[in-house]
Each structure stands twice: as C-alpha cells, then as structure tokens.
C-alpha cells in the first residue's frame, strides 16, 4: 500500500492507495492517487517538505508526487528557533 502522510497538530492525516493496482488503472486507486496528488500540491504550496520513504532505502527529499513510493511523509515548513 502506498501512503501519503501529512504531519499536523492532530498527529498525522493520511491517504492510502494500492500501488499494485496502479498499472491496471483501477478507478478506486486512481481516485485515491488523484486526491493524494492534490493534497501533496496544496501542502507543498504552504511550504511543507516531502520525504519519500521506501523500506531498505535511504530517505529521499522529493518535489514531485510519486504514486509508486511506499510512503511519502510531509512535514510543515521549519524555521530556526
């Protein structure tokens, strides 16, 4: 399952999709991916940073939404304290 998580004061908000069904253009999966893409863009516009987390691989900062990622985690903009 692919998952997009957005860290917030509520803990985290997330949306999932089945990346196995992506090549089949499964309508439910495609709808979830479109929704995740919208959330990704909106959160990025607020200054958030996105990280791609795949098991056994180093964490990667990303600028484009990728539905093949196992997990995308978005953190709010940070400032020096």
């Amino acid at each position, binding site marked *: 399952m692919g998952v997009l998580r957005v860290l917030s004061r*509520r*803990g*985290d908000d997330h949306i999932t999709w089945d990346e196995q069904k992506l090549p089949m253009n499964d309508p439910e999966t495609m709808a979830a991916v479109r929704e995740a893409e919208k959330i990704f863009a909106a959160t990025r516009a607020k200054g958030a940073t996105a990280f791609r*987390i795949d098991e056994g691989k*180093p*964490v990667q900062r990303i600028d484009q939404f990728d539905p093949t990622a196992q997990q995308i985690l978005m953190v709010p903009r*940070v*400032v*020096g304290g």
Partner: protein
Amino acid sequence: MLPLETLLSWGLVALFCTLLTWITARYIWNTSQAERRAIHLMKEILTPQELRQLFWRGYVDIPSTLAPQRVYRVPRSEGYVQVRENGHTIMGLCLQPIERLPRADIVILHKLMIEAQEEFYLQTANKFRYFDI
C-alpha cells in the same frame, strides 16, 4: 429578589465552570490522541535501535550524512539538538516547525531532515556555542 439574583449568579458560575471543564477535557483528549498517533508513526519510522535509545536515554543519535564523526542528538522532550563530534558536543541547534506538532512527530521531522537534507537543516537552524562539561 436577592435570593433570585444570587441563584442566577451561582448558575452563571456553574455554567462557566462546566464550559471550562468541557473545553479542557476536549483539548486534553485531542492532544493525547494526536500524541498516540505520533508515537505509532514514530515506531514505524525509527529503527529498533533508535527507539531503544530514545526510550532508555531520552534522546536519539542520528548519524550525519556529511561528516562520518558527527551525530545529531535529538531529545525526546523539548530542547535543542546537540551536534556531537568524536563524543563531544560542539554546537547546539534550534529548529522548529511553524505549526505545532506532537513531540514524537518533531523527533521524526529532525530525523528525516538530517538524513535527507542535512545541509538545508544546518543552514536553517539557529546555532549556538555549546560547552561540553
């Protein structure tokens, strides 16, 4: 007339107290739910060794991707991040999200930023000298 006014006043006080209790309880419930979710996520993101260190020592050491002798000591509770080289603290860093996050999420935020964009992390954080005693 006076007893009625007194009764009304006490009624208002009782109403205010009930409202205050309800708001406080709701805040505590929401905060604890957010903390629980954040801890659950932290268990997914941190390695078992990092979790053990965080639990027993109250901090987690994140190795630098730029300098092999450097680690970033991220505290579980509020506080600054220590930059340690060869076992000594050389600098303190202060960096925070613009939005309030549960504490466990802040640990995740530091880990991800150090591992994926350490240079930006160092540029953004406020730095201060630290004397290791």
